């Protein structure tokens, strides 16, 4: 019989339904409500900042990355996450520059997708924090109509924000640290407080995270370990020294939700072993409490995650899974 040309592949000849772009775009999809919440609370400024950071990421990936890499969705995640860590009044050009740095120096110099050591979005944010410390800690006052810009978003490139354009407010963590004032828990959970764009929508973030965990697109152990560590440590400290904030305030304030659910769980920069995930999450939680309560900064989620990112190769090596047929389960 006339033989057509057949495929010749190595086994296995079938493939499960998951693919890397599918994982990435699912994460993007769960971030859409988080962005929506940011826009709900902060108005058009939120959209401007997040669009700028995302554009910076996509453009850099497109220009300097391998062909077609934009389509895998990972740069879009970085852009959205970076935008969500920024204050609503940030000039757009700074957000865009942060995106360029995040992809260029956070990912591409390491060799692109899968090769980077640090979470690119957080690296971008760390760069911005070092370059423009004032703009990154200018929190707008939330008064005024929804449609009002929350700062000098449209400042020309290389120009700093016009200070007159911004009425500054404060974040719950800042209030706690520098003025010793508490914020109502309900407002923290719902997100109607000052802060970065994505710091405020705890419920939406948790729902997105739960969905991703069910799909196994993120390792549930990491956020659970972080939350448990932060809650237990701060409860203990609160017990010894009641002037320090309690567990619930620590959990729902600042960037902990976004950081624990979306950044610490970045597959590339977190451990692959189950035991490693617990250690990683514990480390982040402990560092967050340390920095927040005794460090010079009001918030420490970014540095905690970046520090633990650096340890991931060592954690992975130290937590190799038990080989089948070794240890006490093996019958000699």
């Amino acid at each position: 019989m006339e033989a057509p040309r057949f495929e010749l592949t190595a086994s296995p000849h079938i493939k499960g339904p998951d693919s890397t772009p599918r994982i990435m775009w699912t994460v993007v999809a769960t971030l859409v409500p988080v962005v929506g919440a940011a826009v709900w609370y902060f108005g058009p400024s939120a959209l401007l900042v997040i669009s700028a950071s995302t554009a910076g990421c996509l453009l850099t990936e497109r220009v300097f990355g391998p062909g077609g890499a934009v389509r895998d969705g990972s740069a879009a995640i970085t852009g959205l996450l970076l935008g969500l860590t920024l204050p609503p009044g940030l000039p757009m050009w700074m957000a865009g520059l942060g995106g360029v740095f995040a992809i260029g120096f956070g990912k591409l110099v390491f060799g692109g997708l899968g090769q980077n050591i640090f979470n690119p979005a957080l690296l971008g944010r760390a760069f911005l924090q070092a370059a423009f410390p004032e703009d990154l800690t200018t929190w707008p006052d939330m008064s005024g109509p929804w449609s009002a810009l929350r700062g000098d978003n449209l400042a020309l490139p290389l120009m700093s924000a016009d200070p007159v354009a911004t009425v500054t407010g404060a974040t719950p963590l800042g209030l706690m640290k520098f003025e010793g004032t508490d914020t109502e828990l309900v407002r923290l959970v719902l997100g109607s407080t000052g802060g970065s764009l994505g710091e405020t929508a705890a419920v939406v973030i948790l729902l997105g995270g739960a969905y991703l965990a069910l799909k196994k697109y993120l390792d549930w152990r990491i956020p659970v370990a972080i939350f448990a560590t932060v809650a237990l440590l701060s409860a203990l400290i609160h017990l010894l020294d009641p002037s320090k904030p309690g567990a619930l305030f620590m959990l729902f304030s600042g960037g902990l939700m976004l950081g624990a659910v979306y950044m610490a769980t970045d597959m590339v920069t977190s451990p692959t072993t189950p035991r490693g995930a617990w250690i990683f999450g514990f480390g982040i939680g402990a560092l967050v409490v340390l920095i927040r309560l005794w460090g010079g900064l009001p918030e420490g989620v970014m540095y905690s995650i970046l520090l633990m990112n650096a340890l991931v190769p060592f954690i992975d090596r130290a937590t190799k899974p038990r080989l089948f047929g070794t240890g006490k389960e093996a019958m000699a």
Partner: protein
Amino acid sequence: MLSFFGMTFSHGVHPPDSKSLTEHVAIRRMPFPKRLALPLRQHAGKPARLLVRKGDRVQRGDMIAEADGYVSVPIHASAAGTVAAIDWWPHPDGTMAETVILDVEPWSPQIPRPRLVPDWNGLTPAQVRKAVQGGGVVGLGGAAFPTHVKLSPPADLELEWLLVNGAECEPYLTTDHRTMVEFPERVHFGIRIMMQCLGVQRAVVGVEMNKPDAIAALERTKPADLDVTIQPLVVKYPQGAEKMLIKVVTGREVPSGKLPMHVGAVVQNVGSIATIAEIFETGLPLIERVVTVTGSGVRRPSNLIVPVGAMLGDVLDYCGGLTDDAAEIVFGGPMMGSSQPDMRTPLVKGTTGVVVLTDREVKPKTTYPCIKCGHCLDACPVFLNPSRLGLLAQAGRYEEMRDAYHLMDCMLCGSCSYVCPSNIPLSQMFSLSKNMLRKQQDLVAASAPKKDVA
């Protein structure tokens, strides 16, 4: 330890089982094709030694190649005919292999002959082993390991269990399923022969729960005088891997680098067990086997009794041919089988099935970098770190793979590749790495300074 509910091991994957195409299709006998191709290498171990020459006439069941040593079995003519050629011929493993080409005599009635295998009654274990080797019996689950070797455990090891592998965890395949449903007595007879030969008191048949009719048939025909348990298993791949089955049934893990015998168990595939019984029943050696020809690329998916050596093209023709969108032909299951490019390739003793995948079912071609998602770690049934192993393989660090990441414990089940979202051919890389290490070892051995004899 044994429970009425399904049992299983940790990790593993859940590919769609795709068995509905043939699971209720009764086994039919395929008529003799005009030509057969019988490779001398159809089993693990040494290839058989050729006994015939071009032009020789042989009867059905005649030995055409004899066992060459202990880990080797003879090859028999699966039909009466004339040796047309002895030539290099495409082999299912992708190479060309020395093969006897047999022109089948169309007028031959292919009638049964006086016994070529002795009656089982009254045989000693040693005689049974000899008959099994003489009958050319190998494991029919795919690896084709000579069965008589498995029947001869070292005297210093105490055996407790005979585990009969009826899991058939590979998607699509239904040969073991149909064998258990249609020939349950034969399975139990095979179990009796093996238990007697091994001197074990307990046998457990593990069957995945997607085959309730097979479980029922085996329960119904269970002999009263033997301790045989039919154990339902959770449907999960690779449930039928020896180590997984042993873990599930006995609770023991075969120590790394050791054999099932070291935990007191012998595992035998249900099809092989039925074959042992069959050669004693019919008196004919292993010259035919049950094969599932299936997949959406085949017009008439079937379970067939196929003469060993029937060529792929003839078998497919008998099943109505291929559909227009047929894209890949696999011998064995889709998880561990091998792709076939050539219609002349024969189905051999170890061929469990022919699976034809269509355009839509073949693997995607695009791969992405490893994003360290860890899905492969959750899939690996022997708890390796395939993600790390894959990166090391790409870097050519084979020794590190072996020494620090236990490459040699990998059984190439393909679970990691199946789940990898980046579509990285992990198990292919591991198979390659193992080969590289083997080659390296051979080179080292060959270049080692020879002891001075003088």
